[in-house]
């Protein structure tokens, strides 16, 4: 079963082969978890909840999967949508604390007086502060959708064409977002190492 493509495994699952779906889970468990972890500002518990939601959604929506369409963009689309929905519901829950969706999802550098040290609320639930290094902290501040584009391409290795499907953008726009994100990231790193 290790030689089978994602698409073949998903079709087997549609036909009732649970082992095929377990294999897909094994393949995507770590990449999706790490993508979600970074999308959700290293909130480990949230990333685990959303990861579970994603695989439950995949299992329930198996009939909607078109065997000829690539599996990976489909699964990342579901992961991204569930991740962003989670952030939105957190923003609603945080409304009493005056933490908006924008504050949860946009870079702190756009907000004078709320530098990284001010993001303790966001980072408080991470497994260990040591796990969020300098590079991850800067990536976390990238605006959406540049952050997702950067994570999907540079960290998870998806080609621009697949990311275009995930974000419903054209590949040229994805490239623009990626170069902007990488430029911003390297400029900040350059400033920090002055």
């Amino acid at each position, binding site marked *: 079963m290790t030689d089978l493509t994602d698409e073949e495994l998903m079709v087997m699952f549609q036909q*009732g*082969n649970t082992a095929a779906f377990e294999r897909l889970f094994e393949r995507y468990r770590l990449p999706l978890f790490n993508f979600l972890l970074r999308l959700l500002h290293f909130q480990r518990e949230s990333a685990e909840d959303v990861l579970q939601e994603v*695989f439950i959604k995949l299992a329930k929506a198996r009939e909607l999967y078109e065997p000829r369409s690539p599996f990976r963009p489909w699964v990342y689309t579901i992961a991204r949508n569930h991740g962003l929905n989670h952030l939105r519901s957190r923003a609603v829950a945080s409304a009493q604390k005056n933490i908006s969706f924008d504050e949860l999802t946009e870079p702190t550098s756009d907000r004078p007086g709320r530098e990284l040290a001010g993001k303790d609320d966001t980072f408080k639930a991470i497994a260990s502060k040591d796990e969020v290094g300098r590079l991850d902290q800067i990536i976390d501040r990238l605006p959406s959708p540049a952050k997702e584009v950067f994570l999907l391409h*540079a960290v998870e290795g998806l080609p621009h064409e697949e990311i275009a499907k995930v974000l419903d953008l054209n590949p040229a726009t994805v490239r623009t977002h990626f170069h902007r994100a990488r430029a911003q990231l390297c400029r900040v790193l350059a400033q920090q190492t002055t």
Partner: protein
Amino acid sequence: MNCDTYAEWLSAQLDGELEAEHLTELNAHLATCESCRKTQRIMRGLAAEIQGLPRLAPTDRSTLAINVAIHQLAPKPRRVDFGPVMDIEELAEFLLVSLETVGHYLDDLPSFELGGKLLFRRTSVERWIESREHGVQSVESFDRMPAEDEFGRITVNHP
């Protein structure tokens, strides 16, 4: 043009996507801007730094919960190994319909009772299906078929 834009050009250049018309301007800027040369050096080393980012794993508890959910939600494989006699649940599975639908056709379906249980002979059901198929001439009208008796006390249930 500012250093933010030149940094984007540096990124495009690194991936071989910078338009030729911008290359001369970028090189001229790099010759005079120490900050952008530093950005370029960092950008060249970024891929290696990204490779070093931590890859975390979900907890065993979370992984187990997902595995349990997968099994609960897994589609049931379609059964094909029906025996010569079926009960009403097996008949519904055999006919790919709900129990309710079977109930609707119960007076019409060939069946017999044994020990208080309603049973269906597979070959009889297959003949019943054949009699209902459009464009297929039945070998024998189902209504005139003799009752089966190899199971003891049989009550013929069809009209």
